[in-house]
C-alpha cells in the first residue's frame, strides 16, 4: 500500500512538472498578448528579430524557450509569423536580417531575472524599426526541476526515438544507397556499387530486386586506395533519375528508370546532393571529390534545371571549406540551411547565402546525412568503434537527441525509407581477420 502511494505521488509530480508550468505559462502569455495586439489586423507578416537571454537560463534552456514560443506563434492561422532565426550565439539569437524587408512588424524579446522569477519583455516595432507599437512585460516562476526536465528531454526518449529496423549483410563495399517514391507509387531503393547499380522495389518489409545496371567508367579515371561514391535520385515524369559519382571519376553518370528499364542519360561534371528552387528556378546542387582523394572540393556547384532539363551552361559555384559530407536542409522546396563535416571533423552550418554561421564545439566522424524529416545522423569522431549521433533539427537548429554505439565503422549515412518510415541508411564496415564485412542498416523514429 505504502509502495502504491509512493508511486502515485511520484506520478503526480511528473504530471505536474509537464503541464502548465513556468515555460508554458510565460510563452503562452507572450503569444496571447501578441495575438491580442494583432487581432484586428489581417495578412500581416511579423518576425522575432532580436532575442536576448539576460536571465539565469542557460543557452539550451533559452533555445527551448524560443522554440516553445515559436511553436505557439506559428499556430495562429490569421497571422503570418516568419522565423528568421539562424542560430544562437552566447545565449542570444542570431537572425537573418536580410529578410526583414518583407515583414510588417519586428518583435524584440528580452529574458531577465526578477528575484526567483524569469521575466520576459516584449517590444513590437513597426516596419524598419521606425516606432514602438506595443510593449509588454510578464514574469513567472520557473523551478529548477522544470529546467532540468527540459535538459533531459533531449535524451529522454531513446526508446521512442531512433531504432534499427532493418539490417542486411553485403558481400561487397556499397558506396551509397537511396530510397525514393517511384513508378507505380512504389518505394524503390537504389544500391550503388563501384561496378553496378541494383534497383530494389520495397514490398512490405522486403526488398525485391528489379534490375541490375553495370557501370562502366571512362577516363579520366583515378584509381584509388579506397573507393568512395555518392548517389542522388529525383523523380521526373514518373521516372526515377539517378546520378552516381565517386572519388575515382571526375564526372557523375546519369540514368533514368521507368520501372522496367534503365536508360543512360549522359553525365555531368559534379555529383548532385540535392534539388531545390531559387527564384523560381530549379537547381541541382552538389560537389566534386578531390581527384583520387577521400574528401570533396570546397565548392558547391549549382546547375539549373529548366523544364526538367539540365542546363549545363548555367552553373554557378559557391565556395565552402573542403569537406567529407554535406547536408542540404530544405523548407518546402527552398534551400533552408547547408551544413558540412569539414576536414577537421567539425560540423559547420551555413546560411542560404553560404556564410558560415555555426561551428560545432566537438568533432564528429566523416559520415553525415539527413532523414528528410528533421533528423540528421552523424558518425562519431573515434578511433575505436563508431557512434551514431542523431540530431533533431528544430527551426534550423540542431539538438542532439540520440546516441548509439556502433560495432564497426560507419562508411556513409544517407536518406532512406523503410516500411513507409523516413530514416537513415547506414553502412557499417567491420574488419575481421583482415577481411572486411559490410552491413547495411536502416534507422528511423519509432513513433506509433
Amino acid at each position: 500500500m505504502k509502495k502504491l502511494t509512493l508511486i502515485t505521488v511520484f506520478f503526480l509530480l511528473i504530471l505536474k512538472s509537464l503541464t502548465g508550468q513556468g515555460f508554458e505559462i510565460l510563452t503562452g502569455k507572450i503569444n496571447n498578448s501578441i495575438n491580442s495586439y494583432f487581432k484586428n489586423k489581417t495578412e500581416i507578416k511579423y518576425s522575432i528579430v532580436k532575442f536576448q537571454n539576460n536571465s539565469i537560463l542557460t543557452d539550451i534552456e533559452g533555445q527551448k524557450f524560443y522554440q516553445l514560443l515559436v511553436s505557439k506563434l506559428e499556430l495562429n492561422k490569421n497571422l503570418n509569423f516568419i522565423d528568421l532565426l539562424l542560430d544562437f550565439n552566447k545565449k542570444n539569437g542570431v537572425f537573418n536580417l536580410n529578410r526583414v524587408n518583407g515583414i510588417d512588424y519586428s518583435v524584440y524579446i528580452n529574458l531577465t531575472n526578477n528575484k526567483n522569477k524569469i521575466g520576459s519583455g516584449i517590444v513590437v516595432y513597426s516596419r524598419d524599426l521606425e516606432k514602438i507599437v506595443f510593449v509588454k512585460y510578464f514574469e513567472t516562476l520557473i523551478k529548477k526541476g522544470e529546467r532540468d526536465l527540459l535538459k533531459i528531454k533531449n535524451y529522454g526518449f531513446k526508446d521512442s526515438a531512433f531504432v534499427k529496423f532493418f539490417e542486411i549483410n553485403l558481400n561487397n563495399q556499397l558506396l551509397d544507397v537511396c530510397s525514393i517514391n517511384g513508378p507505380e507509387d512504389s518505394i524503390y531503393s537504389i544500391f550503388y556499387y563501384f561496378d553496378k547499380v541494383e534497383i530494389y522495389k520495397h514490398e512490405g518489409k522486403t526488398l525485391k530486386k528489379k534490375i541490375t545496371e553495370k557501370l562502366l567508367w571512362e577516363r579520366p579515371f583515378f584509381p584509388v586506395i579506397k573507393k568512395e561514391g555518392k548517389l542522388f535520385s529525383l523523380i521526373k515524369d514518373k521516372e526515377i533519375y539517378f546520378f552516381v559519382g565517386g572519388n575515382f571519376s571526375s564526372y557523375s553518370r546519369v540514368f533514368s528508370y521507368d520501372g522496367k528499364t534503365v536508360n543512360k542519360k549522359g553525365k555531368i561534371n559534379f555529383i548532385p546532393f540535392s534539388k531545390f528552387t531559387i527564384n523560381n528556378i530549379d537547381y541541382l546542387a552538389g560537389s566534386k571529390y578531390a581527384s583520387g582523394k577521400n574528401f570533396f572540393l570546397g565548392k558547391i556547384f549549382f546547375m539549373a534545371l529548366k523544364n526538367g532539363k539540365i542546363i549545363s551552361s548555367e552553373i554557378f559555384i559557391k565556395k565552402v571549406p573542403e569537406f567529407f559530407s554535406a547536408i542540404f536542409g530544405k523548407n518546402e522546396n527552398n534551400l533552408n540551411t547547408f551544413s558540412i563535416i569539414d576536414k577537421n571533423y567539425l560540423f559547420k552550418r551555413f546560411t542560404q547565402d553560404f556564410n558560415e554561421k555555426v561551428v560545432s564545439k566537438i568533432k564528429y566522424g566523416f559520415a553525415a546525412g539527413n532523414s528528410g524529416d528533421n533528423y540528421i545522423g552523424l558518425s562519431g569522431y573515434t578511433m575505436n568503434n563508431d557512434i551514431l549521433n542523431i540530431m533533431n533539427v528544430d527551426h534550423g537548429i540542431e539538438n542532439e537527441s540520440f546516441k548509439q554505439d556502433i560495432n564497426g565503422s560507419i562508411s556513409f549515412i544517407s536518406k532512406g525509407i523503410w516500411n513507409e518510415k523516413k530514416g537513415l541508411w547506414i553502412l557499417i564496415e567491420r574488419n575481421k581477420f583482415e577481411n572486411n564485412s559490410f552491413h547495411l542498416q536502416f534507422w528511423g523514429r519509432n513513433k506509433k
Partner: protein
Amino acid sequence: MKKLLILLITLTFLGAIKEKYEGTLNIRLNEPVNFSHSTSNYSDTIFYSLIYENFFYLNKKADISSNIFSQYIYEKEKRVVTLKLKPNLSFSTGAPVTTKNIKYSLRFFLNRDISAAKKLSRVIRSFRYEGDFFYIDLNYNVPDILNILTAPELVLLSLNEQAFSGQFFPSQWERNKFMILVPNLFYPGGRSYLNQIKIVFYDYYYPDLYLGDPGSVNKGYSEKNSGIYQNIYLSFPSGKTGTNTKIALYSLLKNFLLKFNFVRLNSLTSAEESPVSVGIKKFSFRKIRTILRYSQIKLYISSSLKRIEKDLLEYLKSYNINISLVFIENSKLKEFIKSNRSVKFLVSEKLFNKKDHIEDKIRSIISELSFTRFNEKYLKFLKELEEIKNINNEELLIESVSNIVTTLINDEFVLPLAHKKFSLYINNNFKDIFMDYYGRPLMQMVKTK
C-alpha cells in the same frame, strides 16, 4: 588470455577517421643519371620503383600481385600466359595505358643485358595482343613463369619519356642537390597519401628515409632489414694482364674499400651462403707500389660508384700511385666494354637480395661480368646451373657452385673486393612503410602519424 586479446584486437575495427593527404618525405639517395630505368644498385632500385610500376610484385605475404593486370593466368597445356589489362589505366600525363605499352615494356626488358631478361628471353617464343588482352607464348612449359615476371626490372613504360607509371613522377630536379616527386593521380594502385617526396643527393642531416649501415642507433628512427647487399668486384674484361698487376690492384682496392665502411668479401656472393671461401693473398704496400707505380693503369668504374671517386683519388695520391679513373654509366657499361676491347680493369658492383637463390646469383655474375671472355666453358656452367635448379638437389648444387666459383677465381675471371649490407632507416613520424621482396620500401600507404 593472450589469444583472446589478439582476437579482440583483430575484431575491432578499421578506424572511423579518414587518412589525411599530407606530408613531405625526405629521402637520401644517389642521384640518377636520367629517367631511363635502371636497377644496377640499391639506390637506383628504390628511385625507379617510385616512378615506374612493376608488371607484377610480391606482396607482404609473398603472393604475386599486380596493379596493372586484372587477370594473369598461365595455361600449362597451351603454354600461354594471358594478361588482361585493367580498364581505364593512364600514365602520369593522363595518356592511356594500352597493350601496346605492355609490348613495348616487355621488349625493352628483354633487350636489357641482365640475367633476369636473358632467362625470360629463352623462355618466350612470341607475344601478341588483342584489345585489353596480352598473350605470351612460351617455348616450353615453365610452371613458375609468373614468378619470373615479378623481376623488378620489368616495369610499365610509356613511349613518351616524360610519362611515368609509378606512384610519383618528377616535378623538379636541381642537379647535385635534390629532386621533387609528386603523386601520380593516375597511379594504378591508387594515389599516395603523401603530398611529395623530396630526394636529396647531398648529406642532408637525418632525412626521413635513408640507407645506412645495419645497427646504427638513431633516436626517432626505425631500422628495417632490407635483405639487400652490394658486392664490389674487380674484373678483367680483356684478360690480357699479368697476374702480379691483377693481384696488386686487387690488394690496393681491397685495402681502400675496407677503410671506407665496406666489409671484407671472400666469396663471390656472401660468406653466409657460399660453399667456397676465396683466399687470395694480398700483396704488401711496398710490393703494390713497386708494381703499380709506373704501370699507367686506367681503371674503369661503374658510375654508381662515383661517390668513392674523391676518396680513392686521395688514397692513390697518398701512396703516390698514378692510376686514372674513368667512370662509365651503368646502363652503357656492357656495350662500352664490348666496343672497347682495351679495357683491362673494371670495378663494378652487383646488388643481391639474400632471398635469391645462390645459383641465380652465380649465373648473373657469369652473364654480366664475363664480357668478351665469355666462352663455351662459361656457357656450360650456365647450362649446368639451369639443370641443377630443375633437379632440386641441394648436395649437387653446392658441389657444382663450388666447382664453378673455384674455376672463375682460378681463371682470374673476377675477384671479389668487398661488400656492404644495407638497412633502411625510417623516421618514426611516418607510418605504414613496408619492405617488398626486393628490399624496396613500399610507399603507397605511407602517411604521417
